[in-house]
Protein backbone atom coordinates (compact mmCIF):
# COMPACT_ATOMS: atom_id res chain seq x y z
CA UNK A 1 0.00 0.00 0.00
CA UNK A 2 1.43 3.40 -0.94
CA UNK A 3 1.96 6.14 1.60
CA UNK A 4 -0.74 8.42 0.26
CA UNK A 5 -3.29 5.68 0.79
CA UNK A 6 -1.91 5.07 4.29
CA UNK A 7 -2.30 8.76 5.07
CA UNK A 8 -5.87 8.71 3.82
CA UNK A 9 -6.56 5.86 6.24
CA UNK A 10 -4.85 7.73 9.07
CA UNK A 11 -7.07 10.70 8.27
CA UNK A 12 -10.03 8.40 8.86
CA UNK A 13 -8.52 7.44 12.23
CA UNK A 14 -7.06 4.06 11.28
CA UNK A 15 -4.48 3.15 13.92
CA UNK A 16 -3.13 0.20 11.94
CA UNK A 17 -2.19 2.49 9.08
CA UNK A 18 -0.67 4.90 11.54
CA UNK A 19 1.38 2.04 13.01
CA UNK A 20 2.72 1.26 9.56
CA UNK A 21 3.79 4.86 9.06
CA UNK A 22 5.51 4.90 12.46
CA UNK A 23 7.27 1.67 11.60
CA UNK A 24 8.42 2.98 8.25
CA UNK A 25 9.77 6.30 9.51
CA UNK A 26 10.79 5.81 13.14
CA UNK A 27 14.49 5.13 12.48
CA UNK A 28 14.81 7.87 9.89
CA UNK A 29 13.15 10.48 12.09
CA UNK A 30 15.08 9.50 15.22
CA UNK A 31 18.32 9.66 13.28
CA UNK A 32 17.43 12.99 11.66
CA UNK A 33 16.52 14.55 14.99
CA UNK A 34 19.63 13.13 16.57
CA UNK A 35 21.76 14.73 13.85
CA UNK A 36 19.80 17.94 14.29
CA UNK A 37 19.96 18.14 18.09
CA UNK A 38 22.93 15.97 18.99
CA UNK A 39 20.99 14.46 21.90
CA UNK A 40 19.64 10.94 21.49
CA UNK A 41 17.14 11.07 24.36
CA UNK A 42 15.70 14.35 23.14
CA UNK A 43 15.62 13.00 19.61
CA UNK A 44 13.54 10.01 20.73
CA UNK A 45 11.14 12.24 22.68
CA UNK A 46 10.69 14.60 19.77
CA UNK A 47 10.25 11.67 17.38
CA UNK A 48 7.35 10.44 19.50
CA UNK A 49 5.86 13.90 19.47
CA UNK A 50 6.36 14.08 15.71
CA UNK A 51 4.36 10.91 15.15
CA UNK A 52 1.62 12.00 17.52
CA UNK A 53 1.30 15.19 15.52
CA UNK A 54 1.21 13.19 12.33
CA UNK A 55 -1.81 11.35 13.71
CA UNK A 56 -3.67 14.32 15.21
CA UNK A 57 -2.90 16.73 12.37
CA UNK A 58 -3.42 14.17 9.63
CA UNK A 59 -6.35 16.17 8.28
CA UNK A 60 -4.01 19.05 7.52
CA UNK A 61 -1.97 16.89 5.17
CA UNK A 62 -2.53 17.62 1.50
CA UNK A 63 -1.40 14.95 -0.97
CA UNK A 64 0.40 17.51 -3.14
CA UNK A 65 3.62 16.81 -1.20
CA UNK A 66 5.23 13.47 -0.37
CA UNK A 67 4.38 12.10 3.06
CA UNK A 68 8.07 12.01 3.95
CA UNK A 69 8.47 15.76 3.37
CA UNK A 70 5.47 16.48 5.56
CA UNK A 71 6.71 14.29 8.41
CA UNK A 72 10.20 15.75 8.19
CA UNK A 73 8.72 19.26 8.21
CA UNK A 74 6.88 18.47 11.45
CA UNK A 75 10.07 17.04 12.97
CA UNK A 76 12.06 20.08 11.85
CA UNK A 77 9.58 22.50 13.39
CA UNK A 78 9.65 20.59 16.66
CA UNK A 79 13.44 20.52 16.68
CA UNK A 80 13.64 24.25 15.98
CA UNK A 81 11.23 24.99 18.81
CA UNK A 82 13.24 22.75 21.10
CA UNK A 83 16.48 24.48 20.16
CA UNK A 84 14.96 27.90 20.81
CA UNK A 85 13.63 26.71 24.14
CA UNK A 86 17.00 25.25 25.07
CA UNK A 87 18.76 28.46 24.07
CA UNK A 88 16.43 30.51 26.26
CA UNK A 89 16.95 28.12 29.16
CA UNK A 90 20.70 27.94 28.74
CA UNK A 91 21.62 29.48 32.06
CA UNK A 92 24.72 27.49 32.87
CA UNK A 93 26.44 27.53 36.19
CA UNK A 94 30.12 28.38 36.68
CA UNK A 95 30.87 24.74 37.46
CA UNK A 96 29.39 23.70 34.13
CA UNK A 97 31.50 26.26 32.26
CA UNK A 98 34.64 25.11 34.05
CA UNK A 99 33.85 21.45 33.27
CA UNK A 100 33.35 22.31 29.60
CA UNK A 101 36.69 24.13 29.44
CA UNK A 102 38.49 21.22 31.06
CA UNK A 103 36.92 18.81 28.60
CA UNK A 104 37.97 20.92 25.57
CA UNK A 105 41.51 21.34 26.83
CA UNK A 106 41.83 17.63 27.45
CA UNK A 107 40.63 16.89 23.93
CA UNK A 108 42.98 19.38 22.27
CA UNK A 109 45.91 17.99 24.20
CA UNK A 110 45.06 14.45 23.14
CA UNK A 111 46.42 13.17 19.85
CA UNK A 112 43.97 13.93 17.02
CA UNK A 113 41.45 11.31 16.18
CA UNK A 114 42.66 9.31 13.20
CA UNK A 115 39.20 8.26 12.13
CA UNK A 116 37.78 10.39 9.35
CA UNK A 117 34.28 9.51 10.34
CA UNK A 118 34.79 10.77 13.82
CA UNK A 119 36.20 14.03 12.50
CA UNK A 120 33.33 14.31 10.12
CA UNK A 121 30.86 13.86 12.93
CA UNK A 122 32.64 16.47 15.01
CA UNK A 123 32.65 18.88 12.09
CA UNK A 124 29.02 18.26 11.40
CA UNK A 125 28.03 19.00 14.97
CA UNK A 126 30.09 22.16 14.98
CA UNK A 127 28.18 23.42 11.95
CA UNK A 128 25.41 25.94 12.58
CA UNK A 129 21.95 24.30 12.30
CA UNK A 130 21.12 26.71 9.48
CA UNK A 131 23.67 24.86 7.33
CA UNK A 132 23.75 21.54 9.11
CA UNK A 133 20.08 20.68 8.55
CA UNK A 134 20.09 21.16 4.75
CA UNK A 135 23.33 19.17 4.53
CA UNK A 136 21.89 16.34 6.62
CA UNK A 137 18.68 16.31 4.59
CA UNK A 138 20.60 16.31 1.33
CA UNK A 139 23.61 14.10 2.02
CA UNK A 140 22.30 11.79 4.71
CA UNK A 141 18.56 11.56 4.10
CA UNK A 142 18.75 11.85 0.34
CA UNK A 143 16.12 14.53 -0.27
CA UNK A 144 16.21 16.70 -3.36
CA UNK A 145 16.80 20.44 -3.03
CA UNK A 146 13.16 21.11 -3.88
CA UNK A 147 11.99 18.75 -1.18
CA UNK A 148 14.36 20.33 1.34
CA UNK A 149 13.02 23.75 0.37
CA UNK A 150 9.53 22.48 1.10
CA UNK A 151 10.50 20.90 4.41
CA UNK A 152 12.34 23.97 5.65
CA UNK A 153 9.89 26.44 4.06
CA UNK A 154 12.69 28.32 2.30
CA UNK A 155 13.33 29.20 -1.35
CA UNK A 156 15.29 26.65 -3.38
CA UNK A 157 18.06 29.20 -3.99
CA UNK A 158 18.55 29.67 -0.27
CA UNK A 159 18.74 25.92 0.23
CA UNK A 160 21.31 25.55 -2.55
CA UNK A 161 23.46 28.27 -1.01
CA UNK A 162 23.20 26.77 2.46
CA UNK A 163 24.10 23.29 1.27
CA UNK A 164 27.06 24.67 -0.61
CA UNK A 165 28.30 26.72 2.34
CA UNK A 166 27.75 23.84 4.72
CA UNK A 167 29.76 21.48 2.54
CA UNK A 168 32.57 24.02 2.20
CA UNK A 169 32.68 24.40 5.96
CA UNK A 170 32.82 20.63 6.44
CA UNK A 171 35.60 20.25 3.87
CA UNK A 172 37.57 23.01 5.53
CA UNK A 173 37.19 21.47 8.96
CA UNK A 174 38.13 18.01 7.67
CA UNK A 175 41.21 19.41 5.93
CA UNK A 176 42.23 21.21 9.11
CA UNK A 177 41.79 18.03 11.10
CA UNK A 178 43.79 15.99 8.57
CA UNK A 179 46.63 18.40 7.87
CA UNK A 180 47.15 20.22 11.11
CA UNK A 181 46.22 17.32 13.30
CA UNK A 182 43.86 19.70 15.03
CA UNK A 183 40.51 18.56 16.18
CA UNK A 184 37.59 20.47 14.73
CA UNK A 185 36.05 22.91 17.15
Amino acid sequence: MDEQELMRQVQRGDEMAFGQIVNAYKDRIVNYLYQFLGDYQKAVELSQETFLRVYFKANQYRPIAPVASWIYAIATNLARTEMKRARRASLVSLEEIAAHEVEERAYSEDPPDPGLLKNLRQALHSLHPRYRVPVILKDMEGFSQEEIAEILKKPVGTIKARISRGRQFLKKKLAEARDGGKAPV
Partner: protein
Amino acid sequence: MEELSLLKKLERVKAPPGFEQRVMAQLSVRRRGLVRRRRVFKLSLAGAFAGLLVVFILLNIFVLQKQAAPGAATIAQETSPLFGASEGVESRSLVPIIETLDYSTEIRSRTEEPRALYLLEEVSDRTLREIKY
Protein backbone atom coordinates in the same frame (compact mmCIF):
# COMPACT_ATOMS: atom_id res chain seq x y z
CA MET B 1 33.81 15.86 -2.12
CA GLU B 2 34.60 12.23 -1.40
CA GLU B 3 34.67 13.04 2.28
CA LEU B 4 31.14 14.32 2.04
CA SER B 5 29.99 11.04 0.54
CA LEU B 6 31.03 9.58 3.88
CA LEU B 7 28.11 11.42 5.42
CA LYS B 8 25.93 8.58 4.16
CA LYS B 9 28.21 6.15 5.92
CA LEU B 10 28.08 7.95 9.22
CA GLU B 11 26.62 5.75 11.90
CA ARG B 12 22.88 6.14 11.96
CA VAL B 13 21.09 5.89 15.25
CA LYS B 14 17.93 3.86 15.44
CA ALA B 15 14.74 4.16 17.40
CA PRO B 16 14.89 2.33 20.73
CA PRO B 17 13.06 -0.98 21.04
CA GLY B 18 9.40 -0.54 21.94
CA PHE B 19 9.28 2.88 20.32
CA GLU B 20 6.17 2.06 18.34
CA GLN B 21 4.36 0.71 21.41
CA ARG B 22 5.23 3.85 23.33
CA VAL B 23 3.86 6.01 20.54
CA MET B 24 0.63 4.01 20.45
CA ALA B 25 0.29 4.24 24.26
CA GLN B 26 0.84 7.99 24.08
CA LEU B 27 -1.73 8.14 21.32
CA SER B 28 -4.49 6.64 23.45
CA VAL B 29 -3.54 8.88 26.41
CA ARG B 30 -3.65 11.96 24.19
CA ARG B 31 -6.92 10.92 22.64
CA ARG B 32 -8.51 10.46 26.07
CA GLY B 33 -7.19 13.87 27.08
CA LEU B 34 -8.57 15.36 23.90
CA VAL B 35 -12.02 13.85 24.53
CA ARG B 36 -11.95 15.14 28.10
CA ARG B 37 -10.91 18.62 26.97
CA ARG B 38 -13.67 18.67 24.38
CA ARG B 39 -16.22 17.61 26.99
CA VAL B 40 -15.02 20.28 29.41
CA PHE B 41 -15.18 22.85 26.63
CA LYS B 42 -18.73 21.87 25.72
CA LEU B 43 -19.84 21.92 29.36
CA SER B 44 -18.23 25.29 29.99
CA LEU B 45 -19.85 26.66 26.86
CA ALA B 46 -23.25 25.38 27.98
CA GLY B 47 -22.64 26.76 31.49
CA ALA B 48 -21.69 30.15 30.14
CA PHE B 49 -24.80 30.20 27.96
CA ALA B 50 -27.03 29.19 30.90
CA GLY B 51 -25.42 31.88 33.06
CA LEU B 52 -26.06 34.51 30.41
CA LEU B 53 -29.67 33.37 30.18
CA VAL B 54 -30.14 33.63 33.95
CA VAL B 55 -28.60 37.11 33.99
CA PHE B 56 -30.87 38.18 31.17
CA ILE B 57 -33.97 36.84 32.93
CA LEU B 58 -33.04 38.51 36.22
CA LEU B 59 -32.38 41.80 34.45
CA ASN B 60 -35.72 41.53 32.76
CA ILE B 61 -37.53 40.91 36.01
CA PHE B 62 -35.86 43.43 38.31
CA VAL B 63 -34.62 46.24 36.12
CA LEU B 64 -36.39 46.40 32.82
CA GLN B 65 -39.94 45.88 34.17
CA LYS B 66 -39.53 48.71 36.71
CA GLN B 67 -38.40 51.08 34.03
CA ALA B 68 -41.21 50.25 31.62
CA ALA B 69 -44.29 52.61 31.67
CA PRO B 70 -47.60 50.99 32.63
CA GLY B 71 -50.00 50.37 29.77
CA ALA B 72 -53.59 51.61 29.39
CA ALA B 73 -55.02 48.37 30.58
CA THR B 74 -52.95 48.61 33.76
CA ILE B 75 -54.21 52.16 34.45
CA ALA B 76 -57.80 51.17 33.87
CA GLN B 77 -57.43 48.26 36.17
CA GLU B 78 -55.77 50.28 38.90
CA THR B 79 -58.32 53.19 38.76
CA SER B 80 -61.35 50.96 38.78
CA PRO B 81 -63.38 50.95 42.05
CA LEU B 82 -63.16 47.21 42.03
CA PHE B 83 -59.42 47.39 42.21
CA GLY B 84 -59.03 45.58 45.49
CA ALA B 85 -56.39 45.36 48.09
CA SER B 86 -56.00 41.77 47.29
CA GLU B 87 -54.20 42.72 44.11
CA GLY B 88 -51.40 44.27 46.05
CA VAL B 89 -52.22 47.97 46.17
CA GLU B 90 -49.62 48.58 48.79
CA SER B 91 -46.92 47.41 46.46
CA ARG B 92 -47.98 49.80 43.69
CA SER B 93 -46.60 53.29 43.53
CA LEU B 94 -49.47 54.64 41.42
CA VAL B 95 -52.28 56.65 43.09
CA PRO B 96 -55.66 56.45 41.35
CA ILE B 97 -56.76 59.99 40.32
CA ILE B 98 -60.25 59.20 39.07
CA GLU B 99 -62.78 58.70 41.82
CA THR B 100 -66.46 57.95 41.64
CA LEU B 101 -68.68 60.40 43.61
CA ASP B 102 -72.20 59.85 44.89
CA TYR B 103 -74.32 63.08 44.47
CA SER B 104 -77.65 61.53 45.48
CA THR B 105 -77.56 63.01 49.01
CA GLU B 106 -76.93 66.54 47.74
CA ILE B 107 -79.89 66.38 45.35
CA ARG B 108 -82.18 64.94 48.02
CA SER B 109 -81.38 67.77 50.52
CA ARG B 110 -82.20 70.47 47.98
CA THR B 111 -85.70 69.22 47.16
CA GLU B 112 -87.32 71.09 50.13
CA GLU B 113 -86.06 74.53 49.04
CA PRO B 114 -88.01 76.61 46.43
CA ARG B 115 -87.11 75.51 43.06
CA ALA B 116 -85.11 77.84 40.97
CA LEU B 117 -84.69 77.54 37.33
CA TYR B 118 -81.38 78.44 35.90
CA LEU B 119 -81.19 79.16 32.25
CA LEU B 120 -77.82 78.74 30.96
CA GLU B 121 -77.02 80.61 27.82
CA GLU B 122 -73.99 80.70 25.84
CA VAL B 123 -72.41 84.09 26.13
CA SER B 124 -70.15 85.18 23.43
CA ASP B 125 -68.25 88.40 22.88
CA ARG B 126 -68.55 88.00 19.21
CA THR B 127 -71.60 89.30 17.30
CA LEU B 128 -73.06 86.99 14.83
CA ARG B 129 -74.39 89.76 12.55
CA GLU B 130 -72.79 92.83 11.22
CA ILE B 131 -74.07 96.20 12.59
CA LYS B 132 -75.82 98.41 10.01
CA TYR B 133 -75.99 102.19 10.27
